[in-house]
């Protein structure tokens, strides 16, 4: 797979990527800011995400971002992760110039006042409740992160460690955050659509070229020490069913071993023919659902196995069965059939991901942030280079109790 794109780094540090796609009539603009929750102060968590909300409050020359976006027929949104904040916009292709004007003003001149801050604090608090508190097991990731990490900032969720951090956010701290992180040298901008690359680069240069870089370099983040023993948290309460979350430390997204770890989770739970599904869901009926996945974080992340126990199955028994499956993977190589199956699935996913211009823009930005955009085309080859032996070696290292954090939800007697 070969992606045609152009890359240019402007003198102010802004990286510009253009992916021409003559088949579409829609344009996509993606701006990835190199700031996520991992860059936050432990006493002021949730700021990257809160700031993302504030970026929709209008800018110096454009009081209402949404009104302009809607008037150009655009759909827009943003998200914040542990590693980055991403703003995206899709629009009828002829509106590219307006899209760049809109983003230039918002990125460089956002208007953030006390009123906007107060409103967005309320909105974020409601988001916190909706995502984490108002549904069974909603707090699982708050608990799991806190269990698996002791010093690294991944120990808190992007929405923040606790509501109090959001409630106490002041305008001064928010603006300081903006000045440090929102600058062209901390951003990657990608455009996809029916455009000539040269024209797009010139247009971006015209809109963004005058913006001064911040020169800010984030300091080193605390590195998570090697875990030397299993960590456990059992939560007892009114839960509809026992649930199990097992998290194992694993290499980061840019590490050479990442693909082998990702393939471990494919072998374990991708598709109904995967090991965990076939053995523990279908054949033994221990779980009603069971998944394995990687968090895909840039710094060393987590490989997670999680599921809900089937009715009548106790969590101890279910957990033991998972350990048996993992132990097998630590000592035996996967079959050629399993490896080829995973590779076909990955190939298929990568091809389908290319259908949407926005996906292309986002992926190019992400790989540029991770290493370089050109590496996006190497993904399939990197997976193909993984051997069954490499998978066994990674499984042996990662999937051991001393590297595990286990969170279990145990219903009260009357619930079960």
């Amino acid at each position, binding site marked *: 797979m070969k992606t045609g794109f152009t890359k240019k780094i402007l003198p102010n540090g802004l990286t510009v990527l253009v992916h021409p796609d003559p*088949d*579409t*009539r829609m344009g996509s603009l993606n701006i990835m800011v190199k700031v996520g929750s991992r860059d936050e102060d432990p006493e002021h968590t949730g700021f990257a995400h809160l700031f993302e909300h504030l970026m*929709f409050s209008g800018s*110096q020359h454009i009081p*209402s971002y949404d*009104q*302009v*976006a*809607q*008037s*150009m*027929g*655009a759909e*827009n949104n943003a998200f914040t992760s542990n590693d980055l904040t991403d703003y995206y916009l*899709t*629009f009828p292709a*002829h509106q*590219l*110039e*307006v899209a760049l*004007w809109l983003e*230039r*003003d918002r990125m460089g*001149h956002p208007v953030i006042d006390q009123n906007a801050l107060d*409103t967005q*604090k*309320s*909105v*974020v608090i*409601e*988001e916190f*409740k*909706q995502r984490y508190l*108002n*549904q*069974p097991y909603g707090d699982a990731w708050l608990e799991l992160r806190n269990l698996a990490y002791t010093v690294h900032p991944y120990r808190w969720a992007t929405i923040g460690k606790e509501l109090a951090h959001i409630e106490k956010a002041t305008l001064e701290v928010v603006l300081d955050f903006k000045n440090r992180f929102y600058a062209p040298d901390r951003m990657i901008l990608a455009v996809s659509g029916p455009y000539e690359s040269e024209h797009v680069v010139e247009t971006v240069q015209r*809109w963004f070229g*005058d913006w001064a870089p911040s020169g800010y370099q984030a300091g080193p983040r605390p590195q998570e020490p090697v875990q030397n023993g299993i960590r456990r948290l059992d939560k007892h309460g009114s839960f*509809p*069913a026992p649930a199990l979350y097992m998290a194992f430390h694993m290499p980061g997204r840019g590490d050479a071993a990442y693909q082998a770890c990702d393939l471990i989770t494919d072998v374990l739970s*991708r*598709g*109904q*023919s*995967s090991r965990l599904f076939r053995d523990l869901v279908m054949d033994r*009926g221990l779980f*009603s*659902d069971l998944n394995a996945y990687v968090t895909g974080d840039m710094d060393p992340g987590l490989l997670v196995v999680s599921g*809900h126990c089937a*009715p009548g199955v106790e969590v101890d028994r279910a957990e033991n069965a998972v350990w048996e499956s993992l132990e097998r993977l630590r000592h035996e190589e996967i079959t050629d*059939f399993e490896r080829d*199956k995973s590779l*076909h699935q990955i*190939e*298929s996913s990568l*091809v*389908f991901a*290319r*259908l949407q211009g926005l996906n292309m823009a986002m992926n190019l930005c992400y790989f540029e942030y991770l290493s370089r955009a050109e590496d996006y085309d190497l993904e399939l080859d990197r997976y193909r280079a993984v051997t069954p032996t490499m998978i066994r070696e990674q499984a042996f290292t990662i999937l051991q109790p001393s590297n595990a954090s286990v969170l279990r939800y145990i219903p009260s007697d009357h619930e079960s």
Partner: protein
Amino acid sequence: MNPDLHRRPSVPDQPELTWSWPVTAGNEHVSASVLNLGREPLLRIELQWKSGTWEEPVFLSGRLMTRLLSEGTTRHSASEWTGAMDFWGAQAHFSIEQERCTATLYVLEAYVDHAWPLFLEALMEPAFDPEALNRVIQSKIQHWNIESRKVTVAASRRSRSLVYPYGHPEQRLSFPADYEAVTVDDLRVAHRLLIRQKAPALGLCGPSADRFLLRILADVKGAWPQIDFAASEDTLTSKENLLEPLSLVIPEPTPSLMHLPMPDAVQVALRSTLVFPSKTHLDYHALKIMTVLLGGYFGSRLMQNLREDKGLTYGVGAGLRSFGDHALMTIQSELQAGSAELALEEVRFEMQRLREEEVGKGEFGRVLSYLRGQWMAGMDGPLAMMDRYWDLWHHGLGEDFLRQSVQTMRDLEPATLRRLAQTYLDPDKAVVVLAGPGL
């Protein structure tokens, strides 16, 4: 040179709204809709039937039947079948909604010859193994137990039971005992009635979809030999819309306001529903615009009021979902505990405002521009266009619907919108459900 941020840059005029429409191909016995579009080497093969949960012979049997289609065939165990499909990187989806069954295969062109026969085998020769059924039922019950704790699910379920009249299939809510009552024989009957005895419509899309057409057509014809496809063919390209105002087939529900107490929850879920006419009605396009203006995009009146001005919620939305003979306009949100009464007042206020005041020129133009952009996005690429095609096919509509949609976005006047709001957007007729702690 510094850019002039004070002035919105001028851009070329909006291009004409156009679309790629599938061509109907085949021979005198069987036909298919084919859309040759895109560049990536993939193929989507889809079979659709105009029958769904509302025609289930036994409650939940159609839903469990479609779920069991991927649990093995008479020739391959579930492990063998899923293993082979996964091996070829193929994704098979079997689903059922109120008025349709859908079987979709996504596969890379290189692997079509391997995956397509397996896909067809699952559809025609499902095993319906009792153990698999029992496992799926237990899983569904577990899922039910988890979901029923959510305020959104509780509000949604109760809302359905209030909107639809007694005896309507949508009015009946499922409980664990209903799942446990379904037998393998029920699945077989549902399979025969919903899949085997009804002619499917076939659609293919991808950059070289026509290359696969003849072979797949022949297989489909062979799988349903008793069906006279020529007689059941639905030629959409020449079909005119049914633009006569229709009466609503389901009776207007009794307006109500219900609070489901869920004291442990930290937010209140809101569902407010009105019955609107379906896609086949003359007013539908304008009602869609009205719904978007009220709560269908980020700048909508409800979003601005409840979220941006008052911070009562993370999000609020209004959506319009069309069935064969009616549509439901539903407003939904998860609200700060203790703010539900205020939120309800504001929802009512925004509905009344649309009934009493004409929408200002700026806002009106903005929502139409937004919808034109979404219209283009909704037909951009082979998969999106095919989705649009199927949706219209189910309503017995064709390209005329798209033309009328464009025409409405061009010609609609604020006065017309207000008149429609007065007719349809009556807060006193809404079925309102709140689920959660105190209001």
